[in-house]
Protein backbone atom coordinates (compact mmCIF):
# COMPACT_ATOMS: atom_id res chain seq x y z
CA UNK A 1 0.00 0.00 0.00
CA UNK A 2 1.59 3.13 -1.13
CA UNK A 3 2.27 5.68 1.47
CA UNK A 4 -0.18 8.52 1.35
CA UNK A 5 0.57 11.97 2.40
CA UNK A 6 -1.52 13.36 5.23
CA UNK A 7 -4.38 15.34 3.81
CA UNK A 8 -4.30 18.78 5.27
CA UNK A 9 -7.17 21.11 4.50
CA UNK A 10 -7.20 24.58 5.98
CA UNK A 11 -10.29 24.99 8.04
CA UNK A 12 -11.34 28.49 8.95
CA UNK A 13 -11.65 28.94 12.66
CA UNK A 14 -12.78 32.32 13.65
CA UNK A 15 -10.44 33.92 16.11
CA UNK A 16 -7.52 31.52 15.52
CA UNK A 17 -5.85 33.04 12.46
CA UNK A 18 -8.00 36.12 12.09
CA UNK A 19 -11.19 37.41 13.57
CA UNK A 20 -14.04 38.25 11.28
CA UNK A 21 -16.88 40.16 12.85
CA UNK A 22 -20.14 38.36 12.18
CA UNK A 23 -22.15 41.57 11.95
CA UNK A 24 -22.01 43.06 8.45
CA UNK A 25 -24.18 46.10 8.78
CA UNK A 26 -26.39 48.00 11.20
CA UNK A 27 -29.43 49.92 10.08
CA UNK A 28 -30.83 52.63 12.37
CA UNK A 29 -34.38 53.92 11.81
CA UNK A 30 -36.03 56.80 13.66
CA UNK A 31 -38.99 59.19 13.49
CA UNK A 32 -38.55 62.94 13.53
CA UNK A 33 -41.86 63.58 15.25
CA UNK A 34 -42.57 60.76 17.70
CA UNK A 35 -41.48 61.00 21.32
CA UNK A 36 -40.37 57.39 21.40
CA UNK A 37 -37.52 58.36 19.05
CA UNK A 38 -36.22 61.11 21.30
CA UNK A 39 -33.40 58.97 22.67
CA UNK A 40 -32.59 57.58 19.22
CA UNK A 41 -32.35 61.08 17.73
CA UNK A 42 -29.99 62.07 20.52
CA UNK A 43 -27.94 58.90 19.97
CA UNK A 44 -27.62 59.58 16.24
CA UNK A 45 -26.53 63.15 16.88
CA UNK A 46 -24.07 62.61 19.71
CA UNK A 47 -23.04 58.93 19.97
CA UNK A 48 -23.13 57.56 16.42
CA UNK A 49 -19.92 59.23 15.12
CA UNK A 50 -17.87 57.64 17.89
CA UNK A 51 -19.55 54.24 17.53
CA UNK A 52 -18.99 54.25 13.75
CA UNK A 53 -15.37 55.28 14.21
CA UNK A 54 -14.76 52.42 16.65
CA UNK A 55 -16.35 49.88 14.27
CA UNK A 56 -15.13 50.70 10.77
CA UNK A 57 -15.88 47.19 9.48
CA UNK A 58 -19.62 47.64 10.00
CA UNK A 59 -21.63 49.41 7.35
CA UNK A 60 -24.00 51.81 9.09
CA UNK A 61 -27.15 53.18 7.47
CA UNK A 62 -29.45 55.79 9.00
CA UNK A 63 -32.89 56.42 7.57
CA UNK A 64 -36.13 57.95 8.81
CA UNK A 65 -39.18 55.80 9.26
CA UNK A 66 -42.08 58.14 10.01
CA UNK A 67 -44.75 57.19 12.57
CA UNK A 68 -42.82 54.10 13.68
CA UNK A 69 -40.80 53.24 16.76
CA UNK A 70 -37.02 53.42 16.34
CA UNK A 71 -35.36 50.12 15.48
CA UNK A 72 -31.79 48.86 15.04
CA UNK A 73 -31.43 46.05 12.53
CA UNK A 74 -28.27 44.01 12.26
CA UNK A 75 -27.35 41.93 9.18
CA UNK A 76 -24.97 39.02 9.67
CA UNK A 77 -22.67 37.02 7.41
CA UNK A 78 -24.81 33.92 7.87
CA UNK A 79 -27.61 35.77 6.08
CA UNK A 80 -29.74 36.27 9.15
CA UNK A 81 -31.10 39.53 10.48
CA UNK A 82 -31.69 40.69 14.05
CA UNK A 83 -33.84 43.65 15.00
CA UNK A 84 -34.14 45.43 18.34
CA UNK A 85 -36.80 48.01 19.10
CA UNK A 86 -35.28 50.89 21.06
CA UNK A 87 -38.44 52.92 21.68
CA UNK A 88 -38.29 55.28 24.65
CA UNK A 89 -34.72 54.30 25.49
CA UNK A 90 -32.13 56.85 26.42
CA UNK A 91 -28.98 57.18 24.26
CA UNK A 92 -26.79 55.14 26.63
CA UNK A 93 -29.22 52.24 26.56
CA UNK A 94 -29.25 52.42 22.77
CA UNK A 95 -25.43 52.25 22.72
CA UNK A 96 -25.68 49.00 24.73
CA UNK A 97 -28.18 47.56 22.24
CA UNK A 98 -25.97 48.54 19.30
CA UNK A 99 -22.99 46.83 20.97
CA UNK A 100 -25.16 43.75 21.62
CA UNK A 101 -26.07 43.52 17.94
CA UNK A 102 -22.48 44.14 16.88
CA UNK A 103 -21.21 41.28 19.08
CA UNK A 104 -23.97 38.85 18.15
CA UNK A 105 -23.16 35.93 15.87
CA UNK A 106 -26.40 36.12 13.97
CA UNK A 107 -27.40 32.66 15.12
CA UNK A 108 -30.72 31.99 16.75
CA UNK A 109 -30.57 32.13 20.51
CA UNK A 110 -30.11 28.65 21.94
CA UNK A 111 -29.82 27.24 25.41
CA UNK A 112 -26.17 26.33 25.99
CA UNK A 113 -25.98 23.00 27.81
CA UNK A 114 -22.49 21.79 26.88
CA UNK A 115 -19.18 23.51 27.53
CA UNK A 116 -17.82 22.78 24.05
CA UNK A 117 -19.48 23.24 20.72
CA UNK A 118 -17.85 21.42 17.83
CA UNK A 119 -18.64 20.09 14.39
CA UNK A 120 -16.63 16.98 15.25
CA UNK A 121 -17.44 16.20 18.83
CA UNK A 122 -15.17 13.94 20.84
CA UNK A 123 -16.71 10.78 22.24
CA UNK A 124 -14.50 10.88 25.31
CA UNK A 125 -15.25 14.38 26.23
CA UNK A 126 -12.87 16.79 27.89
CA UNK A 127 -10.20 15.54 30.27
CA UNK A 128 -10.88 16.49 33.80
CA UNK A 129 -8.45 15.96 36.73
CA UNK A 130 -11.22 15.51 39.29
CA UNK A 131 -12.98 12.60 37.66
CA UNK A 132 -11.95 9.03 36.87
CA UNK A 133 -9.14 7.27 38.73
CA UNK A 134 -7.74 9.36 41.50
CA UNK A 135 -4.09 8.90 42.51
CA UNK A 136 -3.34 9.04 46.18
CA UNK A 137 0.05 10.27 47.19
Amino acid at each position, binding site marked *: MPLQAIRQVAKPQNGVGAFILQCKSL*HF*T*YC*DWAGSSKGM*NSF*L*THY*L*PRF*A*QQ*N*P*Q*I*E*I*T*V*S*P*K*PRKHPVIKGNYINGREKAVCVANMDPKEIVKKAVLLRDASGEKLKKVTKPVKSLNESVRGIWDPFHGHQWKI
Partner: protein
Amino acid sequence: MRNIATLERSLERLLISHATTSTRPICRSCRVAASQTQQSRKFSNSPQLKKRGLKIRREPDTAGEDLSKNPDYVPATTWDGLEQIGGRKWVEEQLDDGTPYQGWGQPSPVNTDDDRLYSLLHDTIIEVLALRSAGRPVSDLNNARRLSSDASISHVLSRNVEFKYPQGWEAGYEDARSVYGESLSPAETHAEYGRRREVTLEDVQVAFRDQTVRELVLQNILPAEETEEALDAASKVKSDFEALDSAAEQAAEAEAEQDGLRVADDRWLGISIRDPAVRFEITKRLTSLTGLIPSDFNVTHSPRLSTLLHNICKPRDAPQPKLAERLSVSAAIAALPNVTVKDRRITPIDVEKDKGRWKLIEQALTERGLPVTGQTTWVKPNVERGGKSLMTRRKARPEGKRPSWTR
Protein backbone atom coordinates in the same frame (compact mmCIF):
# COMPACT_ATOMS: atom_id res chain seq x y z
CA MET B 1 -99.09 70.51 67.30
CA ARG B 2 -99.94 69.71 63.71
CA ASN B 3 -103.05 71.88 63.87
CA ILE B 4 -101.06 74.80 65.26
CA ALA B 5 -98.46 74.60 62.41
CA THR B 6 -101.23 74.53 59.78
CA LEU B 7 -102.85 77.55 61.43
CA GLU B 8 -99.53 79.40 61.42
CA ARG B 9 -99.01 78.79 57.71
CA SER B 10 -102.48 79.92 56.78
CA LEU B 11 -102.05 83.12 58.84
CA GLU B 12 -98.81 83.91 57.00
CA ARG B 13 -100.46 83.33 53.63
CA LEU B 14 -103.16 85.73 54.68
CA LEU B 15 -100.56 88.34 55.60
CA ILE B 16 -98.72 87.93 52.26
CA SER B 17 -101.91 88.15 50.25
CA HIS B 18 -102.86 91.24 52.19
CA ALA B 19 -99.51 92.84 51.32
CA THR B 20 -99.73 91.97 47.61
CA THR B 21 -103.36 93.02 47.20
CA SER B 22 -102.71 96.32 48.88
CA THR B 23 -103.76 99.26 46.74
CA ARG B 24 -100.59 101.18 47.60
CA PRO B 25 -98.01 100.81 44.75
CA ILE B 26 -94.59 99.52 45.86
CA CYS B 27 -91.41 99.68 43.81
CA ARG B 28 -89.80 96.46 42.55
CA SER B 29 -86.79 96.43 44.89
CA CYS B 30 -89.08 96.85 47.93
CA ARG B 31 -91.33 94.02 46.73
CA VAL B 32 -88.34 91.69 46.26
CA ALA B 33 -86.94 92.58 49.68
CA ALA B 34 -90.33 92.02 51.30
CA SER B 35 -90.80 88.63 49.68
CA GLN B 36 -87.30 87.53 50.74
CA THR B 37 -88.06 88.55 54.31
CA GLN B 38 -91.28 86.57 54.25
CA GLN B 39 -89.47 83.52 52.90
CA SER B 40 -86.71 83.61 55.50
CA ARG B 41 -89.26 84.09 58.28
CA LYS B 42 -91.21 81.17 56.97
CA PHE B 43 -88.14 78.91 57.03
CA SER B 44 -86.95 80.00 60.46
CA ASN B 45 -90.36 79.31 61.98
CA SER B 46 -90.69 75.89 60.43
CA PRO B 47 -91.49 73.24 63.06
CA GLN B 48 -89.08 70.72 61.46
CA LEU B 49 -86.09 72.97 62.14
CA LYS B 50 -87.26 73.73 65.65
CA LYS B 51 -87.58 70.03 66.35
CA ARG B 52 -83.96 69.45 65.22
CA GLY B 53 -82.71 72.37 67.33
CA LEU B 54 -81.51 74.35 64.29
CA LYS B 55 -81.82 78.07 63.80
CA ILE B 56 -81.54 80.10 60.60
CA ARG B 57 -79.86 83.47 60.85
CA ARG B 58 -82.48 86.00 59.96
CA GLU B 59 -81.55 88.80 57.62
CA PRO B 60 -82.31 92.25 59.02
CA ASP B 61 -85.47 93.72 57.61
CA THR B 62 -83.56 96.23 55.47
CA ALA B 63 -86.45 97.14 53.25
CA GLY B 64 -88.52 98.35 56.16
CA GLU B 65 -85.62 100.11 57.85
CA ASP B 66 -84.56 101.95 54.68
CA LEU B 67 -88.05 103.15 54.07
CA SER B 68 -88.45 104.51 57.58
CA LYS B 69 -85.00 106.11 57.78
CA ASN B 70 -84.98 107.72 54.33
CA PRO B 71 -86.25 111.27 54.89
CA ASP B 72 -86.84 111.81 51.16
CA TYR B 73 -89.07 108.78 50.78
CA VAL B 74 -92.61 109.64 49.72
CA PRO B 75 -95.01 106.77 49.22
CA ALA B 76 -96.38 106.73 45.70
CA THR B 77 -100.09 106.98 45.25
CA THR B 78 -100.12 106.23 41.49
CA TRP B 79 -97.75 104.27 39.25
CA ASP B 80 -96.69 107.32 37.24
CA GLY B 81 -92.91 107.73 37.36
CA LEU B 82 -92.26 104.28 38.89
CA GLU B 83 -89.94 101.78 37.24
CA GLN B 84 -91.80 99.54 34.84
CA ILE B 85 -90.50 96.24 33.53
CA GLY B 86 -91.76 94.59 30.37
CA GLY B 87 -93.29 95.76 27.14
CA ARG B 88 -91.88 96.43 23.68
CA LYS B 89 -90.28 99.75 24.62
CA TRP B 90 -88.47 98.24 27.59
CA VAL B 91 -87.13 95.34 25.47
CA GLU B 92 -85.82 97.74 22.79
CA GLU B 93 -84.03 99.77 25.46
CA GLN B 94 -82.32 96.64 26.75
CA LEU B 95 -81.06 95.64 23.29
CA ASP B 96 -77.53 96.40 22.09
CA ASP B 97 -77.41 99.62 20.11
CA GLY B 98 -75.19 97.98 17.48
CA THR B 99 -72.00 99.89 18.27
CA PRO B 100 -69.06 97.70 17.25
CA TYR B 101 -66.78 96.62 20.07
CA GLN B 102 -63.37 98.22 20.03
CA GLY B 103 -60.77 96.26 21.95
CA TRP B 104 -57.46 97.56 23.23
CA GLY B 105 -55.38 95.31 21.02
CA GLN B 106 -54.81 94.94 17.30
CA PRO B 107 -57.43 92.78 15.58
CA SER B 108 -54.73 90.86 13.71
CA PRO B 109 -50.94 90.71 14.15
CA VAL B 110 -49.05 93.66 12.65
CA ASN B 111 -45.45 94.90 12.97
CA THR B 112 -44.27 91.38 13.65
CA ASP B 113 -40.86 91.30 12.03
CA ASP B 114 -37.96 91.04 14.46
CA ASP B 115 -36.51 94.51 13.82
CA ARG B 116 -39.89 96.17 14.35
CA LEU B 117 -40.50 94.21 17.55
CA TYR B 118 -37.08 95.28 18.74
CA SER B 119 -37.82 98.97 18.15
CA LEU B 120 -41.31 98.70 19.69
CA LEU B 121 -39.85 97.16 22.86
CA HIS B 122 -37.25 99.93 22.86
CA ASP B 123 -40.01 102.58 22.65
CA THR B 124 -42.00 100.85 25.38
CA ILE B 125 -39.13 100.77 27.87
CA ILE B 126 -38.49 104.47 27.14
CA GLU B 127 -42.13 105.16 27.96
CA VAL B 128 -41.82 103.18 31.21
CA LEU B 129 -38.68 105.05 32.26
CA ALA B 130 -40.20 108.39 31.28
CA LEU B 131 -43.26 107.62 33.43
CA ARG B 132 -41.05 106.71 36.37
CA SER B 133 -38.98 109.87 36.00
CA ALA B 134 -42.19 111.95 35.91
CA GLY B 135 -43.40 110.27 39.10
CA ARG B 136 -46.35 108.64 37.39
CA PRO B 137 -47.36 105.00 37.97
CA VAL B 138 -46.32 102.38 35.40
CA SER B 139 -49.97 101.29 35.24
CA ASP B 140 -50.59 104.42 33.11
CA LEU B 141 -48.51 102.84 30.31
CA ASN B 142 -51.49 101.19 28.70
CA ASN B 143 -53.40 104.45 28.53
CA ALA B 144 -50.93 105.42 25.83
CA ARG B 145 -52.41 105.66 22.39
CA ARG B 146 -51.16 103.47 19.55
CA LEU B 147 -48.71 106.04 18.30
CA SER B 148 -45.69 103.86 18.85
CA SER B 149 -46.75 101.69 15.96
CA ASP B 150 -45.69 104.53 13.68
CA ALA B 151 -42.10 104.26 12.52
CA SER B 152 -41.53 108.02 12.84
CA ILE B 153 -41.85 107.86 16.64
CA SER B 154 -39.31 105.04 16.84
CA HIS B 155 -36.93 107.06 14.70
CA VAL B 156 -37.28 110.13 16.88
CA LEU B 157 -36.89 108.17 20.13
CA SER B 158 -33.83 106.23 18.94
CA ARG B 159 -32.10 109.48 18.04
CA ASN B 160 -33.07 111.51 21.07
CA VAL B 161 -32.85 109.05 23.92
CA GLU B 162 -29.87 107.78 25.83
CA PHE B 163 -29.87 105.24 28.63
CA LYS B 164 -27.65 105.77 31.63
CA TYR B 165 -26.48 102.65 33.41
CA PRO B 166 -24.54 102.08 36.64
CA GLN B 167 -20.77 102.25 36.25
CA GLY B 168 -19.82 98.64 37.00
CA TRP B 169 -22.54 97.27 34.81
CA GLU B 170 -21.11 98.80 31.67
CA ALA B 171 -17.70 97.27 32.39
CA GLY B 172 -19.34 93.87 32.84
CA TYR B 173 -21.14 94.22 29.58
CA GLU B 174 -17.90 94.94 27.76
CA ASP B 175 -16.47 91.76 29.29
CA ALA B 176 -19.37 89.77 27.91
CA ARG B 177 -18.92 91.37 24.52
CA SER B 178 -15.23 90.50 24.49
CA VAL B 179 -15.91 86.90 25.57
CA TYR B 180 -18.69 86.17 23.13
CA GLY B 181 -17.65 88.69 20.50
CA GLU B 182 -19.30 88.70 17.14
CA SER B 183 -20.36 85.03 17.31
CA LEU B 184 -23.54 85.96 19.21
CA SER B 185 -26.22 88.42 18.30
CA PRO B 186 -26.71 91.39 20.67
CA ALA B 187 -29.76 89.75 22.23
CA GLU B 188 -27.87 86.52 22.82
CA THR B 189 -24.91 88.40 24.27
CA HIS B 190 -27.27 90.05 26.70
CA ALA B 191 -28.86 86.76 27.57
CA GLU B 192 -25.40 85.41 28.40
CA TYR B 193 -24.45 88.53 30.29
CA GLY B 194 -27.77 88.65 32.09
CA ARG B 195 -27.07 85.26 33.61
CA ARG B 196 -24.11 86.79 35.35
CA ARG B 197 -25.59 90.12 36.33
CA GLU B 198 -28.80 92.03 35.76
CA VAL B 199 -29.56 95.71 35.90
CA THR B 200 -32.76 96.69 37.61
CA LEU B 201 -35.22 99.21 36.29
CA GLU B 202 -34.44 101.51 39.20
CA ASP B 203 -30.74 101.65 38.28
CA VAL B 204 -31.36 102.81 34.71
CA GLN B 205 -32.12 106.39 33.84
CA VAL B 206 -33.33 107.73 30.56
CA ALA B 207 -31.99 111.04 29.25
CA PHE B 208 -33.72 112.96 26.46
CA ARG B 209 -31.50 115.18 24.37
CA ASP B 210 -34.53 117.22 23.39
CA GLN B 211 -36.96 117.89 26.24
CA THR B 212 -39.77 118.39 23.71
CA VAL B 213 -39.59 114.68 22.92
CA ARG B 214 -39.95 113.83 26.61
CA GLU B 215 -43.02 116.05 26.85
CA LEU B 216 -44.53 114.44 23.77
CA VAL B 217 -43.95 110.94 25.16
CA LEU B 218 -45.63 111.87 28.43
CA GLN B 219 -48.51 113.66 26.69
CA ASN B 220 -49.16 110.57 24.59
CA ILE B 221 -49.72 108.53 27.75
CA LEU B 222 -53.02 109.71 29.18
CA PRO B 223 -53.45 109.79 32.95
CA ALA B 224 -55.82 107.36 34.66
CA GLU B 225 -58.47 110.08 34.88
CA GLU B 226 -58.71 111.55 31.41
CA THR B 227 -59.24 115.29 31.12
CA GLU B 228 -60.16 117.26 28.05
CA GLU B 229 -56.83 119.11 28.15
CA ALA B 230 -54.91 115.83 28.18
CA LEU B 231 -56.98 114.49 25.27
CA ASP B 232 -56.39 117.67 23.25
CA ALA B 233 -52.64 117.52 23.91
CA ALA B 234 -52.50 113.82 22.98
CA SER B 235 -54.31 114.41 19.70
CA LYS B 236 -51.51 116.74 18.53
CA VAL B 237 -48.67 114.39 19.49
CA LYS B 238 -48.64 112.43 16.23
CA SER B 239 -48.21 115.48 13.99
CA ASP B 240 -45.52 116.85 16.32
CA PHE B 241 -43.61 113.59 16.15
CA GLU B 242 -43.80 113.51 12.36
CA ALA B 243 -42.47 117.08 12.17
CA LEU B 244 -39.62 116.17 14.52
CA ASP B 245 -38.84 113.06 12.46
CA SER B 246 -38.50 114.94 9.18
CA ALA B 247 -36.25 117.55 10.83
CA ALA B 248 -34.19 114.87 12.54
CA GLU B 249 -33.73 112.90 9.33
CA GLN B 250 -32.02 115.82 7.65
CA ALA B 251 -29.76 116.33 10.65
CA ALA B 252 -28.96 112.61 10.84
CA GLU B 253 -27.98 112.46 7.20
CA ALA B 254 -25.53 115.30 7.70
CA GLU B 255 -24.17 113.64 10.85
CA ALA B 256 -23.81 110.25 9.16
CA GLU B 257 -21.75 111.77 6.41
CA GLN B 258 -19.30 113.02 8.99
CA ASP B 259 -19.15 110.22 11.56
CA GLY B 260 -20.18 107.17 9.61
CA LEU B 261 -22.81 104.77 10.93
CA ARG B 262 -23.65 104.86 14.60
CA VAL B 263 -23.34 101.58 16.50
CA ALA B 264 -26.63 100.57 18.07
CA ASP B 265 -26.63 100.47 21.85
CA ASP B 266 -28.36 97.24 22.88
CA ARG B 267 -27.51 97.29 26.55
CA TRP B 268 -31.07 98.22 27.51
CA LEU B 269 -32.06 94.63 26.69
CA GLY B 270 -30.38 93.58 29.93
CA ILE B 271 -32.91 95.51 32.06
CA SER B 272 -34.62 93.25 34.58
CA ILE B 273 -38.40 92.97 34.49
CA ARG B 274 -38.79 90.62 37.43
CA ASP B 275 -41.54 92.86 38.89
CA PRO B 276 -44.73 91.13 37.65
CA ALA B 277 -46.66 94.43 37.45
CA VAL B 278 -44.06 96.05 35.19
CA ARG B 279 -43.71 92.88 33.11
CA PHE B 280 -47.48 92.72 32.66
CA GLU B 281 -47.75 96.35 31.57
CA ILE B 282 -44.88 96.00 29.07
CA THR B 283 -46.30 92.78 27.62
CA LYS B 284 -49.78 94.29 27.34
CA ARG B 285 -48.39 97.36 25.60
CA LEU B 286 -46.51 95.16 23.12
CA THR B 287 -49.66 93.12 22.52
CA SER B 288 -51.69 96.27 21.88
CA LEU B 289 -49.09 97.47 19.38
CA THR B 290 -48.50 94.21 17.55
CA GLY B 291 -51.50 91.96 18.14
CA LEU B 292 -49.13 89.17 19.19
CA ILE B 293 -50.24 87.41 22.37
CA PRO B 294 -47.29 85.65 24.01
CA SER B 295 -48.11 82.60 26.10
CA ASP B 296 -48.30 82.90 29.88
CA PHE B 297 -45.33 80.58 30.19
CA ASN B 298 -43.18 82.80 27.98
CA VAL B 299 -44.20 85.92 29.86
CA THR B 300 -43.58 84.47 33.32
CA HIS B 301 -40.24 83.03 32.21
CA SER B 302 -38.91 86.37 30.98
CA PRO B 303 -36.74 87.88 33.71
CA ARG B 304 -35.16 90.42 31.33
CA LEU B 305 -36.19 92.39 28.26
CA SER B 306 -33.84 90.29 26.12
CA THR B 307 -35.62 87.08 27.12
CA LEU B 308 -39.03 88.66 26.57
CA LEU B 309 -37.98 89.75 23.08
CA HIS B 310 -36.52 86.33 22.39
CA ASN B 311 -39.68 84.59 23.62
CA ILE B 312 -41.92 86.77 21.48
CA CYS B 313 -39.77 86.20 18.40
CA LYS B 314 -39.25 82.49 19.07
CA PRO B 315 -42.63 81.08 17.97
CA ARG B 316 -42.18 82.61 14.56
CA ASP B 317 -38.74 81.10 14.06
CA ALA B 318 -38.23 78.76 11.12
CA PRO B 319 -39.03 75.12 11.92
CA GLN B 320 -36.13 73.02 13.08
CA PRO B 321 -34.42 71.14 10.26
CA LYS B 322 -35.01 67.42 10.05
CA LEU B 323 -32.52 65.12 11.69
CA ALA B 324 -31.38 63.78 8.32
CA GLU B 325 -30.55 67.32 7.19
CA ARG B 326 -28.61 67.99 10.36
CA LEU B 327 -26.69 64.71 10.11
CA SER B 328 -25.88 65.20 6.44
CA VAL B 329 -24.22 68.55 7.17
CA SER B 330 -22.42 67.24 10.24
CA ALA B 331 -18.65 67.20 9.71
CA ALA B 332 -18.20 64.28 12.11
CA ILE B 333 -20.58 62.07 10.09
CA ALA B 334 -19.22 63.21 6.72
CA ALA B 335 -15.71 62.13 7.75
CA LEU B 336 -16.85 58.53 8.30
CA PRO B 337 -16.79 56.32 5.17
CA ASN B 338 -18.93 53.56 6.71
CA VAL B 339 -21.94 55.76 7.54
CA THR B 340 -24.72 56.57 5.07
CA VAL B 341 -27.54 58.95 5.98
CA LYS B 342 -30.74 58.73 3.93
CA ASP B 343 -33.27 61.52 3.90
CA ARG B 344 -36.25 59.23 3.29
CA ARG B 345 -37.47 55.81 4.28
CA ILE B 346 -35.63 52.84 2.78
CA THR B 347 -38.24 50.77 0.93
CA PRO B 348 -37.99 47.10 -0.12
CA ILE B 349 -37.37 48.30 -3.70
CA ASP B 350 -34.36 50.31 -2.45
CA VAL B 351 -33.00 47.19 -0.80
CA GLU B 352 -33.35 45.21 -4.04
CA LYS B 353 -31.75 48.01 -6.04
CA ASP B 354 -28.77 48.00 -3.67
CA LYS B 355 -28.34 44.28 -4.24
CA GLY B 356 -28.69 44.71 -8.02
CA ARG B 357 -31.71 42.44 -8.30
CA TRP B 358 -34.39 45.00 -8.97
CA LYS B 359 -34.02 45.09 -12.77
CA LEU B 360 -34.53 41.33 -12.95
CA ILE B 361 -37.53 41.45 -10.63
CA GLU B 362 -39.08 44.29 -12.59
CA GLN B 363 -38.59 42.44 -15.88
CA ALA B 364 -40.11 39.26 -14.50
CA LEU B 365 -43.12 41.08 -13.11
CA THR B 366 -43.72 42.91 -16.39
CA GLU B 367 -43.57 39.69 -18.36
CA ARG B 368 -46.19 38.13 -16.13
CA GLY B 369 -48.44 41.18 -16.30
CA LEU B 370 -48.16 41.76 -12.55
CA PRO B 371 -48.05 45.19 -10.94
CA VAL B 372 -44.47 46.37 -10.57
CA THR B 373 -45.20 48.92 -7.87
CA GLY B 374 -48.29 49.80 -5.93
CA GLN B 375 -50.24 47.88 -3.42
CA THR B 376 -51.29 44.30 -3.84
CA THR B 377 -53.45 42.80 -1.19
CA TRP B 378 -53.09 39.19 -0.27
CA VAL B 379 -56.49 37.57 0.17
CA LYS B 380 -56.45 34.63 2.52
CA PRO B 381 -57.64 31.52 0.65
CA ASN B 382 -60.78 29.87 1.92
CA VAL B 383 -59.42 26.36 2.21
CA GLU B 384 -62.70 24.83 3.38
CA ARG B 385 -64.36 25.77 0.10
CA GLY B 386 -61.36 24.71 -1.90
CA GLY B 387 -60.53 28.28 -2.83
CA LYS B 388 -57.19 29.48 -4.06
CA SER B 389 -55.30 32.57 -3.03
CA LEU B 390 -55.84 35.58 -5.22
CA MET B 391 -53.91 38.72 -5.86
CA THR B 392 -56.37 41.57 -6.01
CA ARG B 393 -55.96 44.85 -7.84
CA ARG B 394 -54.13 43.01 -10.58
CA LYS B 395 -53.53 44.96 -13.76
CA ALA B 396 -55.65 43.87 -16.70
CA ARG B 397 -53.62 41.78 -19.11
CA PRO B 398 -53.70 43.01 -22.72
CA GLU B 399 -55.86 40.81 -24.89
CA GLY B 400 -54.13 38.36 -27.19
CA LYS B 401 -50.89 38.64 -25.30
CA ARG B 402 -50.03 35.66 -23.19
CA PRO B 403 -47.18 35.76 -20.75
CA SER B 404 -44.09 33.85 -21.76
CA TRP B 405 -44.32 31.43 -18.85
CA THR B 406 -47.69 30.10 -20.09
CA ARG B 407 -46.40 29.18 -23.55
